[in-house]
Structure formats: structure tokens, C-alpha cells
């Protein structure tokens, strides 16, 4: 740049500045002119109590220690230069970019010494930006609608899961009670069997008869007393509850008269229908009552009596065991399911839990020879290599952070940051590995579309529109209608 030319230009600019009114200070937002007023011959530095002669303002020498007295020159590290950017948005740039030979403001006002020619590109940029905003607004709009759907979907899913959880909790509770009862029943029967077997043993030794009931009762009593009183209490309650059923079954047994098949069947029914372990005590009594009621049978069974009652008992036990196992495996299944659902609820699904519906949604993309699979809030894969498991969110729910992937050779475990951008559909835009084994994904989703974003875009658009310094015809000709936004 020829110095003479520079001089002319700068003088011209000075003249222009002066004629334009004494109230403007180069590089200052007109709205903030108040701060730059001449206060009894001084300029008050913005961020300190220091004051300097007013002539120091924009005199191309840094006077304020906080560097605020040179908005229009590059003399201070700390000032900002305001570009009006008619046609686009006003902007603040660091004053260090003023007259550095690089056009920063679209109106070129930062290069006011003319070291380089900076044509005014604001209208062009503004127009392009408005078009862009229009597109973006459309996207955000669609995204917001989609987000509503997603939100509903999420709450439906959440509700369904809640219901399922409740249901599971209840059925687990019930099954637990049932399991406990069955277990007791089973224990009693086994005990009875042992008693009978012990009696048999004793009978074999002493040719005794059935009058030794009391000894069995003693054993049972012993057993009962060894149990804690609480279970005894519960048993008593159960006994009370189960009484009608018992009656019914004893009736059945009565009805059966003396057919062993019938007895067996009854036994099975008993074990199926009765959940009280107390029934066993009764069953045992019943058994002996049963036998004592039919002396003929008793006689008839004299030889085979022992075989029969143990056999039936054994059948009952087996049956109960099977039932118990079924109960337990069912319980286990339900518990796992419950845990899974509970785990679902332990994850942060963002504002309004909108991400719930996206949980386990997997996106795939092939980039630079690798196949990437991203399961939102779950895991990330590069081919078969795990790039991380979901660990946490950033503070405003726009980044998913995945940690603890497959460890790198001689390095850390792989990790991934997924950056979410407002969009209509869930798509992976880009995958990169800025540092080894640390991946970044850029993904569009409607879940992060927000009214704020919409508002920001609208504000920007109205800012651009309000910053147009045109006649109305030009305005309507060059600018998309505000209504469209």
C-alpha cells in the first residue's frame, strides 16, 4: 500500500467520521455510545476505575490497563470492534483484527485504513444466511413436530414400561409368597416322609403298631418348635385361611372311600390346591384317620400299608418339587425382566425423557472403509470393535459420552463422544477420530430440536431484516418474507 494513498484514505475517513456526527466512536455499537461519552474531559475505562484523557480514545495507543480505550484500532489487547454489517448481523470482533490486512467484517469496516480492499459482502451474506435460516427453521419445525411424536412415544413407552414394572413387581410378590408356602409344604412332606421312614425303622425293630402316633406327633412338634415363632404365626393364619379348602379336600378324600388311585389323585390335588404347609400336618393326620376309619382296609393294607403311604408321599413330594422349580424359574425370569426395566429407568433420558424412545435405536454408517454402528444410549461399534458404552451426558444433553470400549494397543480404552444436532431423522453425519482411540460422531436427531433454537433463528432473521438499510421495494425483492419464518 502506498503511504500517500493510505494517508488520503485515512484523512477522508476522518473527515467522514467527523461530518457524520461527533457522537460516533469508531468500532463502538451505537447502543453503547453512552459508555464512551466525554465525561469532563475523560474517558472512563470500561472494566476498571481508571480514567484517561478523552483524547486517548481511539488514538492508536493503548492507555487503559484493561485495554478498552481503543475499540477502533488494534492498539489494545482487550478492546472489541463493532461492525455494523448493514444487510447482515452486527458483530463484535477483537480489535486486534482491525487493519491487519484481513477482511473480517462483511462490510469491510475493520480494514478502514485500506491495506486491503474489503468489498461489502453483507447483503449477499445476509441473503444467503436468511435462506439458510429459512431451511433451518423448516428443519427445526419439522424436528419439533417429530420431537413431539418422539416425546409421546417416549411417554407411552415409559408408561408401558411402568405398567409392566408394576405388574412384574406384583406378580413377583405373589410368586414369592407362593414359593415360600410351597417350600414349606414341601419341607413338611419331606419331614413327614422321614418320620414315617423312621417309624418304619422302629416298627421293623420292635414289631410295634400304629398306636405310636404320639411319637410322630412329638417329632413334628419338635420340628415346629425349632422353627421361629413368626413362621408359626403365619402358619396359623394360613391354617385359618385355608380351612374351607381343607374341608373340601377331606370331603373328597372321604368321597373317594378306599381306592388308592383316588387317594393319589387327591394327594396331587391337595398339593396343587393347598398352599398351606399346615395341610401336611392335617394330611398326615388325615392319612392316619383315613386308615383308622377303614379297619378292613387297614387289615387289607396291613402288609402293604407302609409301601403305599410312603409311595403317595413320595409322589406328592416329587410333584411339589416340580412345582417349586417352575415357580422359581418363573420368578427368576420376572426378576431379571424387572431389573432390566428398572435399569431402563436409571438412565437419564434428557428433558421430558424424550430420548427414551431412542434407546437402543441403532444407526449405521460406512466411512473410510469402516462400518460404524451407534446404538444410542447403549454402545458404539467400529466393525466388531467396541468404541464405548454409554456413560453419561454433557450438561445440556447434546452430547452422549461413551466410555470403556475395547482398549487400544498400548493405549487407553476407546471412547466416543456423540454430538447431537437438530434434524428430522436420526442420521450419522460424520465420524472422526480427533485423537487416537477417541472418536467423535455427529448425529442429527429431532430430540435436541428446541423452541429456543427456533427462537434464536427467528431472532437472527429479524436482526438481519432489521439491519437491512433498504427501500421497501428492494427489501421485498431480495429478502424472503418474514412470515415464512
Amino acid at each position, binding site marked *: *500500500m502506498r503511504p500517500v494513498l493510505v494517508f488520503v484514505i485515512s484523512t477522508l475517513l476522518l473527515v467522514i467520521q467527523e461530518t457524520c456526527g461527533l457522537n460516533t466512536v469508531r468500532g463502538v455499537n451505537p447502543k453503547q455510545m453512552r459508555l464512551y461519552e466525554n465525561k469532563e474531559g475523560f474517558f472512563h475505562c470500561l472494566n476498571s476505575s481508571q480514567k484517561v484523557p478523552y483524547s486517548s480514545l481511539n488514538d492508536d495507543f493503548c492507555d487503559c490497563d484493561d485495554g478498552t480505550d481503543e475499540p477502533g484500532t488494534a492498539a489494545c489487547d482487550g478492546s472489541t470492534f463493532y461492525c455494523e454489517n448493514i444487510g447482515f448481523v452486527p458483530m463484535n470482533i477483537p480489535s*486486534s483484527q482491525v487493519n491487519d490486512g484481513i477482511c473480517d467484517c462483511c462490510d469491510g469496516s475493520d480494514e478502514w485504513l485500506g491495506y486491503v480492499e474489503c468489498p461489502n459482502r453483507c447483503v449477499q451474506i445476509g441473503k444467503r444466511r436468511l435462506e439458510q435460516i429459512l431451511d433451518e427453521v423448516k428443519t427445526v419445525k419439522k424436528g419439533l413436530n417429530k420431537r413431539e411424536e418422539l416425546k409421546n412415544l417416549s411417554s407411552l413407552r415409559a408408561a408401558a414400561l411402568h405398567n409392566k414394572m408394576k405388574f412384574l413387581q406384583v406378580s413377583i410378590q405373589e410368586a414369592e409368597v407362593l414359593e415360600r408356602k410351597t417350600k414349606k409344604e414341601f419341607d413338611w412332606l419331606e419331614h413327614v416322609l422321614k418320620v414315617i421312614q423312621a417309624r418304619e425303622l422302629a416298627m421293623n425293630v420292635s414289631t410295634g403298631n400304629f398306636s405310636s402316633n404320639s411319637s410322630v406327633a412329638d417329632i413334628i412338634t419338635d420340628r415346629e418348635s425349632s422353627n421361629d415363632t413368626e413362621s408359626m404365626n403365619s402358619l396359623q393364619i394360613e391354617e385359618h385361611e385355608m380351612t374351607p379348602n381343607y374341608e373340601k379336600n377331606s370331603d373328597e378324600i372321604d368321597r373317594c372311600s378306599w381306592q388308592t388311585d383316588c387317594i393319589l389323585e387327591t394327594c396331587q390335588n391337595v398339593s396343587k390346591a393347598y398352599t398351606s404347609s399346615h395341610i401336611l400336618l392335617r394330611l398326615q393326620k388325615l392319612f392316619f384317620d383315613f386308615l383308622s376309619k377303614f379297619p378292613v382296609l387297614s387289615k387289607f393294607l396291613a402288609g402293604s400299608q407302609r409301601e403305599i403311604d410312603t409311595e403317595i408321599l413320595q409322589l406328592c413330594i416329587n410333584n411339589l418339587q416340580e412345582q417349586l422349580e417352575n415357580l422359581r424359574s418363573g420368578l427368576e425370569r420376572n426378576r431379571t425382566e424387572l431389573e432390566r426395566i428398572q435399569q431402563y429407568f436409571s438412565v437419564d433420558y434428557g428433558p421430558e425423557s424424550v430420548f427414551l424412545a431412542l434407546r437402543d435405536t441403532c444407526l449405521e454408517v460406512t466411512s473410510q472403509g469402516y462400518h460404524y454402528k451407534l446404538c444410542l444410549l447403549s454402545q458404539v461399534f467400529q466393525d466388531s*470393535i467396541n468404541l464405548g458404552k454409554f456413560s453419561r451426558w454433557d450438561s445440556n444433553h447434546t452430547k452422549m459420552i461413551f466410555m470403556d470400549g475395547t482398549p487400544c494397543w498400548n493405549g487407553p480404552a476407546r471412547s466416543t463422544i456423540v454430538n447431537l444436532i437438530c434434524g428430522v431423522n436420526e442420521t450419522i453425519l460424520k465420524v472422526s477420530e480427533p485423537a487416537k482411540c477417541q472418536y467423535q460422531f455427529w448425529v442429527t436427531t429431532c430430540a435436541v430440536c428446541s423452541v429456543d433454537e427456533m427462537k434464536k433463528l427467528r431472532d437472527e432473521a429479524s436482526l438481519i431484516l432489521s439491519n437491512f438499510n433498504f427501500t421497501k421495494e428492494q427489501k421485498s425483492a431480495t429478502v424472503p418474507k418474514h412470515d415464512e419464518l
Partner: protein
Amino acid sequence: MLLSKVIFVIIFVLLYTVSCSNGAKWSELCKCEELSFCRRNRATDQAFVEASLFYPKMRIKEASVKAQKVTVEGVIGDMLNAQLEYSVGNISTVLVLQIFPLIGGSFRLTIAEEEAPLLRFDTRDALNEPFPLGHFDRSADCEDGATCLWNEGRKLILKYSPLELLLFSNNESLYPSVVVNHHQLTKLEVLQDYSSHLCASLQVTNLESRANSESLDDNIRSDNISLGKDMNTTVDSMLQTYCENAFEENVHGHVDQKKRGLEAVAMDITFPLGEHFYGLAERAADLSLSFTKESLYGSVYSEPYRFYNLDVFEYETQKPLGLYGSIPLLYALGEKSTSGCLWLNAAETFVDIFPSNWSQETSLSSHFISETGLLDVVLFPGGETPQEVFNQYLLVTGRPAMTQRFALGYHQSRWNYRDQMDTLTVNQRFDQFNIPCDVIWLDIEHTNGKRYFTWDMEKFPDPSSLLKQIGDNGRKLVTIVDPHIKVDNDYFVYREAKTNQFFIRKQDESEAEYSGWCWAGLSAYLDFVSDKVRNWWSKRFHPRYYPHFGDNLYTWIDMNEPTVFDGPENTIPKSVRHLDGWEHRQVHNMYGFYMHKATYYGLLQSRNFSDRPFVLSRSFFTGSHRYGAVWTGDNQANWEHLRYSIPMILSLQISGMILSGADVGGFFFDPDPELLIRWYETAAFQPFFRAHAHEDTRRREPWEFDERTTMLMRKAVLRRYEFMPYWYTLFAASSSSHCEADFENCGPPMRPLFWEFSSDRKTWKEQTEWMIGNALLVAPILEKDSSMRTVYLPPGNSSHLEQWFDLFATESKMAGIGQRGFTQVIAPLGRHIVFQRGGTIVPFRNRTRRSTICMDRDPVGLRIALDHNGQAKGIIYLDDGHSFLYESGHFRLAKYLWNATGTLQVMVHPLGNKSFVGSEVMIEKIVVYGMKQQPNRVYVSSYLNHTTVNFSFRDGVLFINKLKLKAAPMNGNDKWELHIY
């Protein structure tokens, strides 16, 4: 880590584990004892008989001494020629000794066979162009059995028998500065034909008794007879020792075939006035060199210093092993005298350092041992200060290339910025955080599969636009190019080089190229030793051959030791052949030098000789400073490596490699913010300021941590740019061939303390602080969790008391004046410890800009520090920063003089009178330190009038602000003087 790379890494690991066993770590690198040439020649306690039989003393044939005119590389000058009688075993031969007077008063001494079946490699390419040959002032027989030679007033006495050379730095001195062969360790293993080789017979008989070969038996018999029957057994064993591994040597699992047989050379050089040695770059060792023999008091090492350019993996500090480059320049410093020597040999070399005696005075000796090459050494008579040796050294090896100014800015590098968007984001972030940055670097991953001169078009779809966008922000881009060329017939560089047979060849006589593993996979290695190949290579740097080679693209050459992952000690085997007939062992240490040279000319030619090349190389040799920058290679992110960056760079500085630096932050591993900030604070005051990091590390650009860290890193970067006018002036001075006359102060830009204060013994071992030019003393914090350190401020002497001014003092008033001697300075993060020396004037700029080019027109300031007489002087040099137009007057050189009466005058170099961007910059601010009292009035007198100017006076410092004085006023109207009363 991408999958294909995983596979590659696996291959690499396999290869590496193979090569690690004989490369990489210190414990796995070759020691002198493991290499027969060093073992043979290092032994100084050989029996007399053995020594005389195989290592006879050198004696000059009296009648053969003759001074004559000679032409070396087109330069006419003088030479002294003499013959030496020399017999090894039964082989009697004649050696030729030549002494060349070199410009600047130095002498070059060479010894080689008069006639030999094979050639010895001459490293004259390392010396300046044109060849610095001089003339003898006179030569005469000065005493019995001796000839005296004078070169620019320096006397050299050549004693005949035994051979001894004594070099005097001036006529008055009683003691010589340099003495050659005082310890009689000068040896040359005579090259012989294989058929009649002294060791050939032994070799065969050793390998396998071949009784049917009568002629061989005859040979042995005749040897024995000629040596005398009585000594048969002794001689046999001596011969055995001498010939051990003469033709084949197994070094850490790699077999080295040595067709040329024995050919080592060795010489001892004593410095009678020397008390400390410096130089012998490059290694991660202390600045002041240690003795190298275990038995000696004060020895840190039991190994000699080694020169063998290697890619040493995760190198350790405080080891005498050689790293990526070799500058076998030695300074011998004494209180009142410094001298030196330059060992001109491109082969593997070991150097022992030991105390010696010369007329009962303690002195220092060195013992150089090279595997092959000429006996070739330049002796520097030196003078009172190290500067004299430096001047003589630069006269012989040439001035450093005039730097691009942007190269002195901040460089942001990483292995690797992933893609175009990533790179542009980094570029944009610097503006966002308002941090200046001049250059962004792209490592190997930007290429298409490590095919250099190409771009990975998926990651970098539009390199031209990338370059433009970076250029639009006032910045440059540097891309990497390595010497290993991927073996791939679809790769145009490989194909063309193969067609032309430009690759280093296998050791056998076939024409087949040698190939080894490197980043590109299986690769062939270009033969840069051949000028045909260099010319071809230079043409690659053109958009025609290197797509998108734009105006703001510069070059980085790496892996040019050269690195071969599956080679012995991670490099190419010594036995491979070069196009001009050399065996690699003869040229190894100059491979990187030649590549640097070819690349330098490539950039020069591609831009029509109008733009100064910028080429960063990892490998180098003496003379590489004529072609550009180097860095200290793959260091580590720890405090020890931060500390050792200082002696490493200082050694390079005094060896002429002035554009040098260490990877800021450390290449391997992750630095924590504290280390990173301290490293930035340190490197901001070291010449080449580039942040770089390994692929496995986390991102560490200034914005990757918290806000405070960003602020502190930014602050350090801003300090670099603040002193940019001073740095650039210092670099211009070092590169100027009229330095002494125009700049007065011509040392390396970054100097050891002893450079400026060589008579102050306390400075001799100092390597935690340094000088920038003669004016600034820098002492960074180099310890973790520390915010205080001891700084040594040389006190001067009674006739000249030094004054020191703490430029960034934050503490109490008067803190600006430094306490002479050892003093404690408190420096939390963000406080730079920089003292300005009384008597100096330092130009600065303190406007924040994006890059150096954006600062062109900004006004400057002067910091004036008064000495005890109230005087000061300094210089500013200005030019366009990138072209060669300064050679035709487009520069400004202004000298400022502040005299004791309080007048500041400016004198401008009359030849620098043509304009350029920034030639009219103003001085806006003057700060004066060391004023005794507040002045009453300050005014500027110019051609027409006197103008009173405002000033302020705080804490003994005078601030004169808002000046509008031409920094370098050319015409009468602009001339000014500043007065204070």
C-alpha cells in the same frame, strides 16, 4: 485406531520388537566396545610393539613438504602438501597430508593414502559454497623439522617427527590453542586390495582351515617370516586383534558385511587453554561436556560421545549416544581463550573427552574415532571469546539461511489433524481465542497411504481450498515428506525413481534397490547423496508434481536418518550401496543433510528464487543450517525433557543450527496443564516454537483445557510475538555475511550464558537459563509445583558492573532492578522471568495479531536498559520477512544509541533505502530502565522543530508514550533525536 492401522501396527510391533532388540533404547544401542573399529582405536594402552606394528607413529618425509596453489571446487587458493611414511604390518604405504588455509584464519587438515584401491568419502559438501579456501600469509621453515604457516595472522607449526600440529590464535600467545596428535593417537587404517589384504588370509583360515589353498598358506608364512620368527605368536595374536571383524561383524543380530575391510581413522586434538568443552550436537546431554572414561574423576559417562544419526525411540536424557543429527564441532572454553575444531567425517564416529597436560597446565583433549572417511579436521584458532570460534566456524560452513519471519512465530502441529474440517477448525479456533499462530502442520496421515506428495482425498478433499482458507487468515501450512518411498508401481514417485534408478541399492553387485520397512510399509530409499537424485527431488516441489503445492505451503522432512524399522539400530544397513559408488557407512551422517539441501533448493526453485524456503528436518549434519530448521525429535512430556530441551537447543545454536527447537509439550505421552504451560513459557523464548504431539496423546491445543490454562498459554504465545522484532533482528544478524560490521553482535540468537560472560566461571555449567542475543536473560521455571527459582545474574566486574532489569516483575516497587549474582525470583504460572541487561536496547511490538504477517505495519516500541554509565545501544532490522529483496536494499537497519547525557539517536544503514511493507513503521513507545531520577522534560527534535512529549515516571522506569517517530528514518524530514533533561 482404525482397523487397517491396527493390522499395520501389529506388523509394526512385530518388526519393532525385532528392531528394538538392536535399536531404540539406550541399552540396546551400540557401544564403542561392541564395534570393532572403535574398540581397536580407542584402546590407548596397546603394547609398544603392537602399536608400532599396526598403528605406527606418523612421520613426515622432510623433503616432501611443499606449499602450492590449488583449486578446490573452482576456488583458487593455497595448500601445503606433505608425504607421510606409514607401514602397517608388512604393508608399507605413503600417506598424503594436506593443509588448507580457510577463510577466517582456520586450517583444514586432511590425511589419506596417496594411492588407494578404494576412495575415502570427502565431506566437503558440508562446507560453505563457494568453498572457503584461503591463502597462506606466508609459510617458512621456522625451526628444525618443522614448517610454519600463517593464515590471516594465525600461526600453525607443523612438526615432522612425530607428526604434530600447533595452532596459535595470535602471535603473542605462548601456548598454542589447538594441538593435533599430542597423544600420538592419530591413526589411519590403510585401505588395501582384498586379494592382498593383511587380514584376508587370516579371515579365510579363521573361517575354515583350507589346507588345499597353498597360496594363502604362503601368504601367512611370508607374513610371519617378515615379522620375525621370535615374535610369531605375539604377532599372530596382535594380527588377530587387528583383523578381528575386519570383513564381517555381527552387531546385535545384524550381520554387517564390510567389503572394504579396515579403514578407520582416528586423531587426538588437545586444547592447552581449554577448561570446558561444548558442542558435539546432537544428544540429550548436558551443555558442558563430561569426560568419557570411567576411571576419570568427573566423568559422567563411561562411553565416548557417539555420532551416528539414529531415530532413537523414546530417547533418554543424560546419555552420550547420538540422536538424529551430527555436528562434530567442539568448543574448548577457557577463561581468556576459546578455540575449537570441526571433525569432518560422515561415518560413524566416537569421541572421547579426557583431561590432558600441556607444559604442566591442565588442559583438555579429545579423541575422534571414525569408522571410515578421510582424516579430515578443521582447526579453529578462536580467540578471546566463543564468538570468535563461531565466526570462524560460520566462515567455513556458511551463514545460516535467512529465515522466513513466519518461522519465528508460533507453530501448531500434531500427528495428525484428521481431515480438512479438523484442520480448518484448529485454524479458526486461533482466531476465536485471539491467539496468534503462524503455521499449522500436517503429519504423515494427510497423504494417501504414506505416499508423499499426495493427499488423502477422502480426508482432504480440497487441499487448495484448505491452503487458501489458512492463507486468508495470514497463516501457512506445512506438510511432511519422508525419504522412504512406498514400493508400489502405481505410485508415480516410486515409478519414476525406479525407472531412473534413484534408489539406494542392495549390498550385492546387482542393481536391485534396497527396501525396508517404514511408515509407508515396504519402501525404497532415495539416494540423496547423488546430485542427480537431488536435482530430480528438487523438481518435485512444483504443483505439476506435488498437487496443490500452493504459495503458503512449506515442507517438513522426517525419518531421514534414515529410519528403517527392520534395519540395524532402526536405520539402513551400513553395507548398502549408493549410486556414486559409496557404501552407506561412508556417508551415513550426511544423508539427512543432503535431503535437506535438495528440499531447500526444491522450494527455492519452485518459487522462482523469490521466496525463502522453510524446511524443517529431523536429521542434519554440520552445514545443514544453510538449508533451514531442525528440531530435537521425539521427546517426552515430562519435566526432565523440558529441562534438557535447553542444553540440547543451546548446543545446536552454538553449532550454527539457529532455527531449532523442541516439540513443545513433549512428543510422547500427555502433559498436564502445568507442564504444558511451563513448556510454553520456556519455548516462547526458544527459537523454533512448535507444539507437536504423538498420535496416541490427547488433544492439547491451547483451548483443550480450562479457561485459565488457555489464558496462560495464550500469554506465553503473546510474549513470543512481543519480542518478534528482536528475534527477527537477531536472526538477520546471524544470517548476514556482514554481521560484524552491520550488527556488531553476531552470536546465535539463543546463547548460553557463557557466551556473553565467558570469563565468569559461574556461567560455564549453566543450562537452566540463557541469553537471547546479548540483551535478554531468560530463566523459566522448570520444576513441578514450583513458583520460585534461583536466577544467576552475572555481576560483571569492577570496571563494568552489569545492570539487570526484571521486565515482568510483579512484586514490590524497585523490583525492576535485579540483584546481581544469585537471586531468588518468584514466578507463579503466567509470570515470565526475563531480565534485560543494562546497556541494551530491545525493540518490541505489543499488539496482538493473528500472525507475523498481520504485524507488518504495527508500530514498535523500544525497551532501553541503561548500563552503569547511563548508556545503551541496540538495533532493529526490518524487511518484508519472506523474499530476497533485502539483498537489493529493501530493508531497514537502524541503530539506536542512548548516550550518557540522555539523548537517543538513530542511525540508519545507508544501503537499506528501498521500501517494502512496513518500512515506514513508527516507534510509538519508549521505556527506559535504570534512570537515576525523574527527568524534567522530554522532547523530540527533528529537522524542523522541537516538540515536547509527555512522559510518566514510575518505580524508576521512564515511559514515553504516544510517539510518532519513524523507526528507521531514511530521509531528512523524518530524522529525529530524543532528549531528556
